[in-house]
């Protein structure tokens, strides 16, 4: 089983042109900022939007070829977990899960029995008669997944499956969702803007920006060598563009970085925020990369503080809260950034 989607379409200001292949048993995450075209891509696969050019093939069967073939959504072997889950508010949980089988011609009693079985497996047997509004976020997610999987689709699409959940509950629910996804035998594709979801749930990432694929790979690959500032920010690293000459990288601002490798040409330089130290006075010592800048933004992130520094070498530094108070770092504070040449990873653009 496999999915091959190579498509182009224009919708409002969005110009989507992507090619995505996915295999059976694989979870692929489509990751990108809002408006990048992720949800539109999902809607195309589900048959809820049509394409201008290209082809969508699932298990060798053409679903859409932008011309003679267009299989409508109700005849595609595709299950969708929508953003906000979209459980039918006027139907009970049991009727929601039974809806797909009923629509595909299975008798009422049999469809209900199958729905009851799947609710039982999910530990939701006692909620079968409830209306969707009486469910918690996590329960809604499980019901939505059960509803989408009830018809045994060959492709499962999930649109921002964690977005509707409380931040505090996400960790546990992410693990649970991962286990449930593993039990689904077909192709799994999820859309998210949250790198944590992508890292936890997907085997492979496809990163879309402004309707185009900017990078494909495992989370580790993408994190090691981000190919755009969006991806770098997503995985939490600093990405600097410049031109390398020997062990120096010249940035557009004119500043130079000292890097460990000897390369040449257009390069990306990656620096992890934890490698960046902050000083109030110009530091003297082993770090070869020292630059003056101004604190632009201070953001508390768990037990760490992310400090965005603007200047000729724009960077994000990750420091402890005590360092922030000792150095008196607030927006507008002039600071020096420092990191070692060995903390810089350089790779060609």
């Amino acid at each position, binding site marked *: 089983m496999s999915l091959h989607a190579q498509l182009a379409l224009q919708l409002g200001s969005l110009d989507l042109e992507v090619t995505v292949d996915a295999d059976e048993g694989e979870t692929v995450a489509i990751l990108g900022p809002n408006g990048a075209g992720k949800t539109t891509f999902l809607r195309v696969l589900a048959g*809820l939007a049509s394409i201008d050019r290209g082809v969508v093939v699932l298990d060798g069967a053409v679903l859409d070829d932008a011309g003679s073939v267009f299989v409508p959504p109700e005849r595609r072997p595709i299950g969708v977990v929508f953003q906000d889950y979209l459980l039918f508010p006027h139907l009970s949980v049991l009727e929601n899960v039974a809806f797909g089988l009923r*629509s595909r011609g299975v008798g009422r009693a049999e469809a209900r029995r199958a729905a009851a079985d799947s609710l039982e497996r999910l530990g939701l047997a006692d909620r079968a008669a409830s209306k969707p509004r009486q469910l918690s976020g996590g329960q809604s997610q499980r019901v939505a997944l059960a509803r989408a999987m009830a018809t045994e689709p060959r492709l499962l699409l999930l649109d921002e499956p964690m977005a509707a959940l409380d931040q505090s509950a996400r960790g546990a629910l992410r693990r649970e969702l991962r286990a449930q996804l593993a039990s689904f035998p077909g192709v799994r594709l999820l859309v998210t803007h949250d790198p944590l979801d992508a890292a936890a749930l997907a085997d492979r990432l496809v990163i879309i920006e402004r309707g185009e694929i900017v990078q494909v790979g495992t989370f580790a690959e993408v994190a090691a060598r981000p190919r755009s500032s969006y991806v770098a920010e997503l995985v939490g690293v600093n990405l600097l563009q410049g031109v390398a000459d020997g062990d120096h990288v010249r940035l557009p601002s004119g500043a130079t970085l000292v890097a460990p490798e000897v390369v040449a040409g257009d390069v990306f330089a990656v620096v992890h925020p934890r490698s960046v130290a902050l000083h109030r006075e110009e530091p003297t010592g082993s770090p070869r990369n020292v630059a003056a800048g101004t604190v632009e933004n201070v953001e508390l992130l768990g037990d760490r503080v992310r400090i965005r520094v603007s200047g000729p070498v724009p960077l994000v530094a990750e420091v402890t809260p005590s360092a922030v108070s000792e150095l008196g770092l607030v927006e507008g504070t002039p600071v020096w950034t420092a990191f070692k040449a060995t903390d810089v990873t350089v790779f060609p653009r």
Partner: protein
Amino acid sequence: MPWLAVLIAFVGFAFIALPLIGLLLEVPWGSLRDDLTTPEAAAALRLSVVCSLWATALAVLFGVPLAWVLARVSFPGRSIVRALVLLPLVVPPVVGGVGLFYAFGRDGLVGQYLYDWFGIQLTFSTAGAVFAETFVAMPFLVITVEAALRSMDRRYEDAAATLGAQPLTVARRITLPLIAPGLVAGAALAWARALGEFGATITFAGNIQGRTQTTPLAVYLLLESKPDVAIGLSIVLLAVCVAVLALLRDRWLGVG
């Protein structure tokens, strides 16, 4: 200044309320039961119930698909079609009656064929009264249902489609239940309007007791000869309107 506004507001309120109070004060409560069971009153009430329910049923049958097309299908001239459909809301009912006469009357645009081919004559028939009521009532149904269709979350329909539901199944199991409150409100408004219809009915269908003389027509006719019966019938119509308002209070009066 606020006192002046309050004073003027009170005058406005009194203007609306006084006729209702005047009507209530005149109600012959003691003989109401007898008044409403006189042959004229009983026939008018029975006919009103039958005609208004038929008109409501026709308005729902044709109005829901019409509202759906207006809400969901994009076609050139849609705003003109919508304007035409809603025109009976503002057109004087008498004018509507004249229009119906020249469309469905015995010599009318369509009416001549109805008569020649099927022997159907709508003027001076109960069916004519139903036509007149449907004509004035349907816009209420269409406008309410179209608003409900536009405000519902269409992604539920998408979800149903991905679960394998054919378009008709989606309409029956998802769309209609989700717009049910709007449909009920629209049907109630249409029914109330049909029940009170006067001008188009008397112009197009005439004023024949037991056949086209609905309650409002009977009220008008009996006000001179049997005022107590006329007032009794009026109070029934008023009570129905109050009931409809009570049904719709959550939607329109902002009381929850």
